[in-house]
């Protein structure tokens, strides 16, 4: 474990340093499960959990809103004014 920590160099990483790297870590699909900073830092662990949770929940935001019927009526009206055979 200690060797692993030395390898990735995050044993002594501060919260600020870790969070500075977070965008890159997220986008590279890093596995945080063995990250030594997270193992020792409850705050950054909570942050990572939350950001993941937000991204996961966003994927579940289904399109539930329907436009009002007026939208289709306006489309029909506009199409009738457009030259056919365009």
């Amino acid at each position: 474990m200690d060797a692993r920590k030395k390898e990735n160099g995050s044993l002594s990483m501060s919260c600020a340093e870790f969070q500075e790297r977070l965008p890159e870590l997220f986008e590279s699909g890093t596995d945080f499960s063995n990250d030594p900073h997270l193992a020792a830092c409850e705050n950054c662990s909570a942050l990572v959990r939350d950001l993941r949770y937000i991204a996961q929940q966003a994927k579940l935001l289904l399109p539930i809103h329907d436009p009002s019927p007026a939208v289709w009526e306006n489309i029909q009206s506009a199409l009738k004014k457009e030259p056919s055979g365009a």
Partner: protein
Amino acid sequence: MSTANKNLPASPGPTAPPKNPNQHMRRNPPIAGEAEAIGKAQAGDGVAFATLYALHKRRVYSLCLRMLGNVAEAEDLTQEAFLQLHRKIGTFRGDSAFSTWLHRLAVNVVLMHLRKKGLPQVSLEETLEPSQQDGQRKDIGARDLTLSGSIDRVTLERAVENLPPGYRLVFVLHDVEGYEHNEIASMLDCSIGNSKSQLHKARMKLRDLLRSGQRAEPADL
């Protein structure tokens, strides 16, 4: 070419059947009856065009609403997106899923609208560098609350609405709609790094909004 303005039905017909809620809808598989409707609409069949509207209106409108945060504008641009669809459907060759093609068309309609308005959210130099206080600050020591498992869809929707416009655009395009950073960079004429950075700031800002919403009365979010 198209004569779909003739023979339009009074009603656009039934809405598309609900999708599997466990499936992210950003890259839709083909919808039953869609291919036939596309072919007919390309030949000028108004009923088929109405079917396409019925199948896709919800998602196009939701996309517009999330990108704009304004019902009236979202409805206007949904209308514009489908009018453009009517004009351009003959150019659809099936190289990508129709839904992907249509939603990209809708995104472009929204972005064009925002550019015409001259608002900062599409001046990417400005958009992608909002004030440092938004989402960029570190979260050192704030351990009083975690979100996991506690946010319902409505709350998240409202928080997204409250994101600064530049953040909202990238967040909606990436996390909700499923576009990749290279696609977003192309759409928004920014660098991939900017898109990634903006997305991270948006998520951080959302976390702040959601946490503050949890601390406050629900109606205050």
